[in-house]
């Protein structure tokens, strides 16, 4: 169960992998073999995983930071060029849907509402209608947006300053739940549970928090955080960032990838680690399960934690 880009000790490596760091991965919502990869080399690539084929490639003006599918034939990318772009999987046609004042860090597609949502370093969340290219509104956030995810009608926005806002996408004017991260350090990534009950965040301090939407006390009492992605070298514990979290679409278990290059599988409900995979040669920057849960794409590329290298 592992497709991979980058050199992988497990699974297989895709040919024609990006020439710079991979910033995001996304599988098609209904084709288990279509994988999108966004890279700092300014390109978005579409792979047919089983055939190990590079199906299409889009070149942008700047590094691409995130990608997502809406339908099996349409996908979106955002990046340092501050534009939200729509790309047609079949025709390779691309067009600009909208833009932000600063780089756009993340993009998600709300299946329920058919809207695309973008989170930017300009401290706004944008909502877009992909069919008409119309902006449906921009909502000011207290901080730069670092990561977002949506499940059903719930949108979770993770920002700088350990701020996490939970929205109902039908009413973006009101913040459903303004929260503070359960962890003491910057949130790196957020992903919602497929069952819509909660979300998982990863921080730069080798820690993962599992939280629940339900504001009831019993539910909130279940939230927890745990340490991972750490290595002890010469008696000093090296603490790596948790760069990526991906939920298995069926089992509700999740995978985490850290800058240490370790991929872990967790059972969040039972608070157990299911598996730890052998270390990848460099950090894991992105993870994605495909729609039937049979493949996990792992992007192993340096995430600039220690500045420019080479």
């Amino acid at each position: 169960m592992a497709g991979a880009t980058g050199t992988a000790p497990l699974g297989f490596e895709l040919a024609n992998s990006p020439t710079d760091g991979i910033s995001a991965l996304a599988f098609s919502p209904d084709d288990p073999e279509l994988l999108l990869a966004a890279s700092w080399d300014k390109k978005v690539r579409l792979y047919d995983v089983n055939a190990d084929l590079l199906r299409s490639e889009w070149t942008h003006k700047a590094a691409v930071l995130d990608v997502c599918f809406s339908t099996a034939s349409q996908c979106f990318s955002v990046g340092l060029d501050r534009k939200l772009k729509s790309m047609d999987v079949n025709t390779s046609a691309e067009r600009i849907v909208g833009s932000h004042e600063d780089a756009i860090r993340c993009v998600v597609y709300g299946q329920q509402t058919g809207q695309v949502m973008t989170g930017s370093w300009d401290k706004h969340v944008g909502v877009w209608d992909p069919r008409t290219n119309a902006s449906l509104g921009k909502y000011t956030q207290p901080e730069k947006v670092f990561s977002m995810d949506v499940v059903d009608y719930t949108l979770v926005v993770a920002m700088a300053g350990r701020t996490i806002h939970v929205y109902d996408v039908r009413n973006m004017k009101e913040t459903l739940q303004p929260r503070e991260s359960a962890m003491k350090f910057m949130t790196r990534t957020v992903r919602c549970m497929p069952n819509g009950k909660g979300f998982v965040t990863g921080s730069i301090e080798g820690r993962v928090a599992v939280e629940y939407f339900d504001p009831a006390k019993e539910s909130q009492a279940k939230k927890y955080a745990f340490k991972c992605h750490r290595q002890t070298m010469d008696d000093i514990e090296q603490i790596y960032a948790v760069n990526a979290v991906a939920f298995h679409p069926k089992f509700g278990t999740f995978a985490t990838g850290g800058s240490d290059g370790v991929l872990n599988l967790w059972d969040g409900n039972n608070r157990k680690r299911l598996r730890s995979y052998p270390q990848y040669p460099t950090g894991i920057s992105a993870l994605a399960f495909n729609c039937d849960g049979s493949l996990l794409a792992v992007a192993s590329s340096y995430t600039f934690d220690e500045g420019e290298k080479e």
Partner: protein
Amino acid sequence: MGKKKRQEDKPWCWYCDREFDDEKVLIDHQRIKHFKCLECNKKLNTAGGMVVHMQQVHKQTCTTVAGAIPGRDTVDIEIFGMEGIPEADLQAHIEKLSGGGGSGKRKKVDIGALTPDQIQRQMAEFKKQQQQMASAPPPQMGMHGMQPPQAPYGMPMQYPSQGYPPQGYPPQPYGAPPQYGGRPFMPPQGGYPLYPPYQQGMPPQGYPPQGMPPQGMPPQGMPPHGMPPHGMPPQGMPPQGMPPQGMPSGMPPPGMPPYGVPPPQFGPGPGPNQQWPPRPPMPFLPPRPTPPPQMGGTPPPSRSPSQYEPAPFDGYSQPAPQMSAPMSTPSAPESAGYSNGAAADVCAAAAVPAAPAKKTGQLVYSDNEISVEEKRALHPKYAYQESASA
């Protein structure tokens, strides 16, 4: 220990006095923390299993259980989960729970109470000893061999001054400050081949505090229980020895086991005593019978009473790390060279702070305000000119 209120029926680990929500977790805990082979990390189910495994696979003798609190590190008791815990300890545990449960905590605090200063001091003492030992011929008496680790427990050291205070025994299984008899009791030379196991505790008195090797000394001062060679009751005075003055005429005190038998009624629970016999020989082979000759090499003859002061301390705090010190950390050359318990103690003491030191973590990416992507975006390679946009 847990966040939840203590429940009396919660399973707990005899070795480290920790409670668990269910027995499965307890068993896992024991396998990982206490029954893991120091060589190959294989996890066994019981202490006995671990001993046999290490004996057969690695040809090593394991005499202590890793991670156990002092007095509970014996491999002689076969414990699996909650099974096999000595009845007395079970009772004590229940009592502790019902009676406020403070004692367990206090013990813990004691364990942690070894400050770096103390460790340094012990280390210094140890080095001093070694130097002294290097210059003085090591005592070759059987007795010495068995003793060192016991010293911390302190109990036996009381005899000399008080004869046989049976009363003194049980109440203070550990930590009774060692009281040196006014006179040094010299173990007779030539050695008794076999000492009753529980004699191990004695040597401290047996040694002149000044650190004189016993060889030249007349046996007059023999400690009472040192006398019965081969487990003979004191009445049968060894020919060479004279009973110390205060000694009750050879009667085993009430409640005292016959010599040569590990005294089960010692101390409040089986904990302290059981651990004794196995402990001393730690780095070596089987617990009691004949003390390996080398062991005699290092014992405390050179310790002065004042030097002993911290002993009860390390006795407390070390046992757990100690067992791992000689076996799992060959990197501590001192412990390899000197197999004596004191040496191991000191080395272990040094190891104690090392563990917490690991806690100092270092974030690989530590900027809590600006994300890596933002920094990376500033790099000229990724610079984006608005004007160039389509």
